[in-house]
């Protein structure tokens, strides 16, 4: 006879956890929770699926499967000539690639803008990638060394023995990036100064900041560009006429500084009075207080606004086309008029390419700013 002692069971190890039932986890649960949680949602989901089913295959066909990747002229992209349906004519973009990137920059000297792009990428990576050390050197490099070296590279310098390339040869992506970079590099510091000036108690600093911000914000960018390029030469003697790209760069930089100033001012206003008083109680002077206490907090708050300005700036660089600077979008448009390439389908390829490039740049900036916000999210969050 066995005793109860012999049948007792002592568990020596835990059972492995069994997975939760299918109804509360896994793909079925996820589907139920997110796509089919109610009758209405189910209907919407089915409608969207149906829509995707209708659109996606055609899109893949147009963009990839039927697309023409290599073409010497528009004939390779006309369905009636090649005898099968033709999607996007990427061959147009491929054939014009160098022109889209460098504009009319002399072919033998294109290593210079290439080096410029490389230097810019190095500078951006140095400042933006967290793991790379010595941010202080990075700042000096990007805001002082890079602009000088970049300028000498692109436009050349007689004294250094680099052949000069006048700015009317610059074009395409190169010019868009130059305008965007100058806009960003100038508008941040200038915008901060204007914002501080506007909140200053010194009457001259305050009123001149207010006048400048309100005057520039009060007119459209197109007007600024038009004044800089068309009206300005009427009022100065011939020898005094700066380069037309330079005039546009100054116009763009001032314009976005005014917007940046208002964004930064929003951040300054969000800092509680106690922060200022605490800094003053520690005996810090105005600039120390601003640089060490106020601005780091204020700028952190307005990162979304600043990046919003950057994205707006990058896209607004396309407006320089109206003063006949051949930026990225304008070179594509100009190429569409080339009789060798002129067909009904070509604008689609050109504009789609432009849209993709601008999207990558702007979305990249937006994603990076979100990661910065997360990294700096130390307080003020309850």
């Amino acid at each position, binding site marked *: 006879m066995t005793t109860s002692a012999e049948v007792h069971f002592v568990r020596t190890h835990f059972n492995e956890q069994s997975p939760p039932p299918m109804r509360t986890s896994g793909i079925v649960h996820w589907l139920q929770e997110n796509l089919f949680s109610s009758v209405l949602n189910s209907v919407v989901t089915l409608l969207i699926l149906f829509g995707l089913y209708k659109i996606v295959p055609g899109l893949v066909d147009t963009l990839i499967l039927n697309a023409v990747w290599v073409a010497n002229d528009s004939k390779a992209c006309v369905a009636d000539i090649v005898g099968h349906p033709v999607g996007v004519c990427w061959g147009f973009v491929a054939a014009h690639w160098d022109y889209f990137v460098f504009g009319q920059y002399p072919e033998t000297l294109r290593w210079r803008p290439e080096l410029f792009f490389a230097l810019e990428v190095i500078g951006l990576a140095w400042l933006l990638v967290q793991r790379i050390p010595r941010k202080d050197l990075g700042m000096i490099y990007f805001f002082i060394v890079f602009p000088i070296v970049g300028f000498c590279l692109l436009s050349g310098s007689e004294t250094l023995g680099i052949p000069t390339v006048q700015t009317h040869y610059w074009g395409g992506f190169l010019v868009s990036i130059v305008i965007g970079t100058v806009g960003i590099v100038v508008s941040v510091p200038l915008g901060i100064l204007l914002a501080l000036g506007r909140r200053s108690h010194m009457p001259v600093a305050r009123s001149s900041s207010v006048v400048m911000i309100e005057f520039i914000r009060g007119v459209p960018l197109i007007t600024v560009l038009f004044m800089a390029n068309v009206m300005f030469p*009427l009022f100065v003697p011939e020898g005094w006429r700066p380069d037309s790209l330079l005039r546009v760069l100054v116009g763009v930089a001032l314009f976005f500084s005014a917007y940046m100033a208002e964004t930064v001012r929003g951040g300054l206003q969000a800092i509680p009075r106690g922060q200022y008083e605490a800094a003053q109680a520690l005996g810090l002077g105005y600039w120390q207080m601003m640089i060490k206490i106020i601005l780091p907090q204020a700028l952190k708050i307005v990162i979304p606004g600043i990046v919003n300005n950057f994205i707006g700036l990058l896209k607004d660089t396309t407006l320089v086309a109206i003063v006949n600077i051949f930026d990225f979008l304008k070179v594509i448009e100009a*190429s569409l008029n080339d009789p*060798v390439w002129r067909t009904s389908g070509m604008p689609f390829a050109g504009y789609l390419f432009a849209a993709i490039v601008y999207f990558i740049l702007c979305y990249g900036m937006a994603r990076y700013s979100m990661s910065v916000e997360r990294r700096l999210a130390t307080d003020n969050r309850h």
Partner: protein
Amino acid sequence: MKKIIAAAVVAAASFGLVTAASAGTLDNVKAKGQVVCGANPGTAGFGVPDQKGNWTGLDVDYCRAIAAAIFNDPTKVKFVPLSSKDRFTALASGEVDVLIRNSTWTMSRETTLGVIWAGINFYDGQGFMVNKKLNVKSAKELAGATICVQQGTTTELNLADFFRSNKLEYKVVTLGTSEEALKAFDTGRCDAYTTDRSGLAADRLSMSKPDDNVILPEIISKEPLGPLVRQGDDQWLNLVKWVHFALLTAEEDGITSKNVDEKVKSDDPELKRVLGTEGKFGESLGLSNAWVVQIVKGVGNYEEIFERNVGPNTPIQLARASNALWSKGGLQYAPPIR
């Protein structure tokens, strides 16, 4: 907008700013080492960047011809692409030395904007394009047709004039831009599409089925296009004018970029005058006496320029028509170099 610009130009001119800038353009050009041309920002056949970004076109080659005449180097040019609304301001303000940007020569432009035309390098005029299916051979058969046209242009007014003077009924569809008007025609909203003939040829290429459409022979308006300069600098005006005449004379005398070296050796008195082995015609313009040789070597004669950019072997396929030499039934006529 136009009025404001015109007013600004006039105001600046009255302050003496513009006239100060326009004196001695040739000396300025020589000092700068390049001719600054107001150019077209993108019209097929007249001024358009090719695959590598080099500017090509009839107007572009005229600019190169001026550079070749002055510097013996057709590449010493700077193109400032100008939109139609700021082109005259740019010329008046001295931003460009010469404007060669298919600009129509009209009386009001010459009398109010402070500019002066140096010649007509392309006789253009408004025409019609119809679908082949209509089986129409002449614009006068377009009675009752629906016609697509761009809004607010002289094109629209010419259209009305033409149909009224021929006592024909028509319906008009006006659209905001030339692209929209072309699109409407392409999708069958209209029976015919009208714009300048040089534009028609290029527009035909952007249609979904270019070969299904034909351009009708009638020209219903005068659109003389040509290079223009600022008023008040006759030396520069003469130079631009005679570069144009030199291109025509070279064609007339059979001087091409290929045979110019042989022709220089010729004993023919006309050729000797034109090619500068006799007389001082180049010097009187402030150039070297071999100026015509330089031009023809650099860009060819008028025929070569025409055939290269807009002629029957290009996608634009324009016939010489009014732009043939006077001796061949056209309107292009150059006074003699003597």
